[in-house]
């Protein structure tokens, strides 16, 4: 976003600048070429006008002078020598009969007749290229007054100076000027290579520029880009010379005409690109310097979140980011300290709980052993008592042994063997073995077994232990007169073993941690029973869950994969 925000305005500015430059330069080039065309037009007009005015002035010299033919002849010769543009000057009387001439011999010109335009008061024939390759027009100025025309002064007007004028003008290295007559005839071409077209009498009536110029108004310039002879685009501008009805066209290859514009355009694009590149690079470097500490902070945070509290960030900056990095590192240091504290406290708590549990779990059997040992001293000769003593000692040591086995089970998984077994039978055996405890606690024990049998694949001893743990928990959680229910249920592909009580229930916030090590809802004990039970069920590929309502009771459900009953069971 930051880069876009920086680059887009520059790109927009660059595009606008290029467009503006292109249009401006194009306009400038076109205006320049038009200016050339206008200036050439003006020079041509002035050249023609000056010579025609000279002719009129010469004609005026003859008015009412009553010069003899010989005198006229001499004057005409002098004028012809003085004004080389007039290769011949001859006078004709009103009837068209030759009177005098600058030529040696008879006049070579005749009075232009027909639809000949009048330019500056002089009749002017179309321009032709004569046998000596020179552009020539026959011009005739009237002699005498308008009321009484006495004849004509006719001149062969060589306008070769027009060729020189046009030939001198170069627009760039490839641009030239064309002069076109009213009938589309090419009168002059600035390109020497094209001059033969003039000699050949090329007519440009069909030329796009000529057509446009003739169709437009006299003072309306024409600008076109047209294909040149070689197919290359040519910038052509044209103006008219209204007094002569001639046209001046300036042609220049577009490539050359707009070369400066294109060069400037390229330079501008290069400059913009360079600026853009510098900006992007600068942005990248700056952005990276800005983002790097943030990234480091993110990585550090993630590491902390993953528990790697030794992670620290390096932010060498005095900005807020630098301060944030220092704060992060301080925080991490503090977290390490807090974690150590928590661990110490947890170790202490766990040690205390284990110690308390061990005291609780072992003190009663030790007490029983101690009491029975004292009774044995007194009743050592009572055979019945000795038998009772033996059973009591065996039971209490078995209890002590189970406590140790529970502790050992937490350290390493217990070996599991899988055999098909009937949960109904397993629950019946466990119920039988624990009925004494239930009754001692003032509770009733119900069995609710699935009639169809509930066969699973499992270790009978491990599952018996799970069941006993659950029943013991239920007994301990249920006040007298309560009921402990053991049930099986086979449905679909699974069998469920359910142990429920009508005890005090478990608060919802404790349900989630019931199966963790050393977690117990009881006031005393190690709290390893449910954790060991879960490990066993997990090893058998089943699940164990608990639902409880405070004050109403708790139900534990063990769900295992159902297997068909073995043939012997059938």
């Amino acid at each position, binding site marked *: 976003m930051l880069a876009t925000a920086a680059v887009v305005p520059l790109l927009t500015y660059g595009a606008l600048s290029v467009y503006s430059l292109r249009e401006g330069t194009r306009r400038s080039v076109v205006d320049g070429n038009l200016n050339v065309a206008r200036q050439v037009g003006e020079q041509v007009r002035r050249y023609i006008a000056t010579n025609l005015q000279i002719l009129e002035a010469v004609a005026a010299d003859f008015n009412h002078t009553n010069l003899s033919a010989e005198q006229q002849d001499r004057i005409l010769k002098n004028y012809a020598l003085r004004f080389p543009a007039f290769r011949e000057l001859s006078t004709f009387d009103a009837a068209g009969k030759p009177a005098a001439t600058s030529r*040696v011999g008879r006049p070579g010109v005749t009075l232009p007749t027909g639809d000949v335009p009048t330019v500056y008061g002089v009749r002017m024939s179309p321009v032709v290229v004569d046998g*000596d390759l020179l552009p020539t027009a026959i011009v005739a100025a009237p002699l005498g007054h308008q009321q009484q025309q006495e004849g004509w002064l006719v001149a062969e007007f060589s306008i070769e100076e027009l060729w020189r004028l046009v*030939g001198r003008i170069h627009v760039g290295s490839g641009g030239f000027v064309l002069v076109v007559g009213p009938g589309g005839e090419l009168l002059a071409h600035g390109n020497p290579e094209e001059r033969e077209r003039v000699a050949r009498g090329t007519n440009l009536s069909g030329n796009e520029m000529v057509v446009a110029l003739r169709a437009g108004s006299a003072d309306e310039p024409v600008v076109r880009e047209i294909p040149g002879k070689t197919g290359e685009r040519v910038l052509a501008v044209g103006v008219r010379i209204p007094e002569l009805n001639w046209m001046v066209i300036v042609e220049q290859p577009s490539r050359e005409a707009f070369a400066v514009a294109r060069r400037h355009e390229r330079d501008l694009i290069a400059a913009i690109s360079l600026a853009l590149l510098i900006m992007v690079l600068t942005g990248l470097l700056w952005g990276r310097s800005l983002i790097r500490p943030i990234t480091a902070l993110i990585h550090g945070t993630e590491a902390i979140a993953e528990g790697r509290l030794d992670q620290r960030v390096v932010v060498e900056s005095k900005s807020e980011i630098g301060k944030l990095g220092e704060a992060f590192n301080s925080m991490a240091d503090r977290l390490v300290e807090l974690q150590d504290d928590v661990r110490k406290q947890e170790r202490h708590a766990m040690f205390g709980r284990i110690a308390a549990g061990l005291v609780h779990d072992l003190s009663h059997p030790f007490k029983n052993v101690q009491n029975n040992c004292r009774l044995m001293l007194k009743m050592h000769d009572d055979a019945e008592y000795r038998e009772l003593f033996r059973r009591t000692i065996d039971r209490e040591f078995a209890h002590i042994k189970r406590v140790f086995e529970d502790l050992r089970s937490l350290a390493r998984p217990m070996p599991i063997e899988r055999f098909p077994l009937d949960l109904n039978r397993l629950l019946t055996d466990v119920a039988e073995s624990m009925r004494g405890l239930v009754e001692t606690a003032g509770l009733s024990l119900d069995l609710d077994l699935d009639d169809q049998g509930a066969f699973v694949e499992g270790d009978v001893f491990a599952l018996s232990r799970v069941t006993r743990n659950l029943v013991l928990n239920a007994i301990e959680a249920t006040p007298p007169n309560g009921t402990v229910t053991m049930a099986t249920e086979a449905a679909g592909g699974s069998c469920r073993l359910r142990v429920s009580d009508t005890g005090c229930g478990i608060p919802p916030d404790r349900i989630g941690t019931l199966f963790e090590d050393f977690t117990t809802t009881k006031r005393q004990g190690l709290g390893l029973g449910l954790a060991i039970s879960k490990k066993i069920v997990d090893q058998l590929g089943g699940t164990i869950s608990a639902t409880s309502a405070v004050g109403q009771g708790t139900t534990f459900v063990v769900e295992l994969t159902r297997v068909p009953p073995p043939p012997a069971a059938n």
Partner: protein
Amino acid sequence: MGIVGALSAFACQGSSPPPPPPGPITLTIGVPQSRQLDPSHGIEALEWVTTERLTTNDSSGRTKPLLLEGWSLSADGLVWSLHVRSGVRFQDGSSLSSADVKRTIDAIVANPAARALSACVGDIRSVETTGERDVVVTLSRRCSYLLDDLDSPVTRTAADGRTRIGTGPFAKVASSADTITLEANRNYYLGRPPIDRVVLRSYDTLRTAWAEMMRGRVDFLWEVGPDTAELLSDQSSVDVRTFLSYYAYAVLLNSTRPALRDARVRRAINIAINREALVQQGLRGKGLPANGLIWPKHWARDGSIPGFVYDPEAATRLLRGEASDVQATRAAALRSTPPLEFTCLVPANFAILERLALLVQRQLGDVGVRMHLESIAPSAMMGRLDRGDYDAIVLPLVGGPYATIPYRFWHSAGPSRRWNYWGYANGAVDAALDAMRDARDDQHFREAMTSFETAVRDDPPAVFLAWSQTVQASSRRFEVPRDGDGRDALYVLNRWQLRAPGGMAQ
């Protein structure tokens, strides 16, 4: 017709030319007929490329061997031993021998016109072959102009008994009214020319010839006028070459006419002419002011001899003080009229000559000379000259490269007047020309030529205006050897080559 041959080659013919004949390498030469003065000569004048002569001239006008390998002169200057070049073959493959040379010289001797024109032919006593390649010419008197006088094509009658064949690099194979076709002479002794075919074609106007050149149908314009040379010079496809021609524009003064009989009058006329202005205004700068009758590049010419210096005031004084005797009968009655008046013939329809005549007329008018101009058709010109029916005439007059040309023009003695149509006679001039004829070596020749120029300046037979420059245009398709510069490119036509697209000659 002798003068016509000396003036230039001219003809007036015209019809649309046929397309050029096919051929591997064809060079088409366009000859604009509007540039030609003499109607009796057209493209035929360029047929000389088919033949060769005994000698040629280098760019300084010095005689050089061509079909002759060399020559020697006896101590008394009467016996010329000519050595014919070996290996030369005619266009039919036959070898050139001393007999061919003898036959050519005999033909010249037997030709009355040639005898009349030459300075030495009348003095030839015998022509003998002394071997396959040796010819001995014996004269009755010394004559240094002999080789110039023998300047005639060496030809032989072909096997068909009609066709004349030469030894030139090209042979004529066809001709029509406006086209002559030449083909390369495979037997040419200097090697077959790279160009296979040459087409000489006449055009009515320079414009049509040039337009044809632009279309690629003409490769060489033999002569382009000074008016248009400037316009052609910047064509990238054309090489424009300019060289000082052998012709000078001159106003020939008929010294037999009373008005022009006095040498002082003619000197006055000469110094009344601003030749620099004539070159600029009349020839657009394409020329060289002419200060004498000798071609300015001639090896024997002494360039230090002062020419006529433009001095209109001196001319006026000279004319008023000295010409009055000439016009004594009118001077008293016509004090207010110009002291000198004469008519100058101007060949019709030649813009340059007309413009020069008008300029001369104006310049002479500035010193009080009334020179009337009379247009004359070229066809009528020779008759007027023959009859001496003229005061003056403006013409291009040949001035080189042969040293014998002044002799032909200005020597008054002899059985014929040669080219001296104007009846010019001056003892000092004759003596100088005789001394040139009799010169024993270059030094004597130079001294004699200096004497001639001095004598002519004292008694000028004409107003030499300007040496013209010839402009030729050749297509860049062809490469003209550089040693062809400074003279007609056709002199080296046998070595023209087609230029390769990259610019190098093939």
